[in-house]
């Protein structure tokens, strides 16, 4: 029993440690994406990495949007959260 609990604890704590960096983006890169989207009228809240792309959370025209950007700083897809 103690071993099971210790193992579960180790797995969970490992998960927390990992969860805090897995979606981090290089700050200079994030700044470029932020500037590019801001120019297009987005109010950018956050840039993170998701599914091998960059994902920006932003507001535009009162809508909550997720904008997926590729390595060439092209917008691949935008999603509206409704």
């Amino acid at each position, binding site marked *: *029993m103690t071993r*099971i*609990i210790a193992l*579960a*604890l180790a797995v*969970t704590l490992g*998960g*927390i440690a990992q*969860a*805090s960096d897995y979606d981090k983006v290089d700050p200079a890169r994030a700044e470029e994406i932020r500037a590019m989207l801001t120019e297009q009228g987005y109010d*950018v*809240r*956050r840039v993170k990495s998701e599914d091998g792309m960059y994902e*920006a*959370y*932003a*507001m535009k025209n*009162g809508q*909550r949007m997720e904008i997926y950007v590729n390595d060439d700083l092209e917008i691949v897809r935008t999603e509206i*959260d409704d």
Partner: protein
Amino acid sequence: MTTHKIWDPFVRVFHWSLAGLFAANALIVDDDSWIHEWIGYAVAALVGLRILWGVIGPRHARFAAFAPTPSDVTEQITDIATRRRRAHLGHTPLGALMIFNLLLTMLAICASGYMMTTDAFWGVEWVEEVHEALVTWAELSVIAHIAAVLYESHRTGINLPRAMVTGTKRVPDDIRVVE
């Protein structure tokens, strides 16, 4: 062996549906999906109903009946430490603390998750971090809860998981029952 009808149907349905929905959202469902959000609303509704039931429900469901005093808690710890075997018919004092912990944590998870869907907190990192930290806390609590239930079942000879399914506790004759 004496049998005692303890858990009403709502308490049991609440327990297992909360366990299932939390596990689904924490471990299986894609957290970007609408299903994740709707499971969250269902959890909030369930916990809301449980709180109402804790005020108006039958005796063993009522918070006033199982909210422990500090001395209740130390008594149970003493039971465990000194191998003094006594059984509680309703929630044990430590079990009750875990219930309050889990109910409050679930509400805080639902609230922070809802915030992530609002204009004001859309994409705001600390909200997501709070949401995730609370989920981790809940997962650790669930592990502790399951371990404690197994341990207490073994210690008292009362099959607690079974009681949460059937509603009935079967108490061995060689153990003293305290309220």
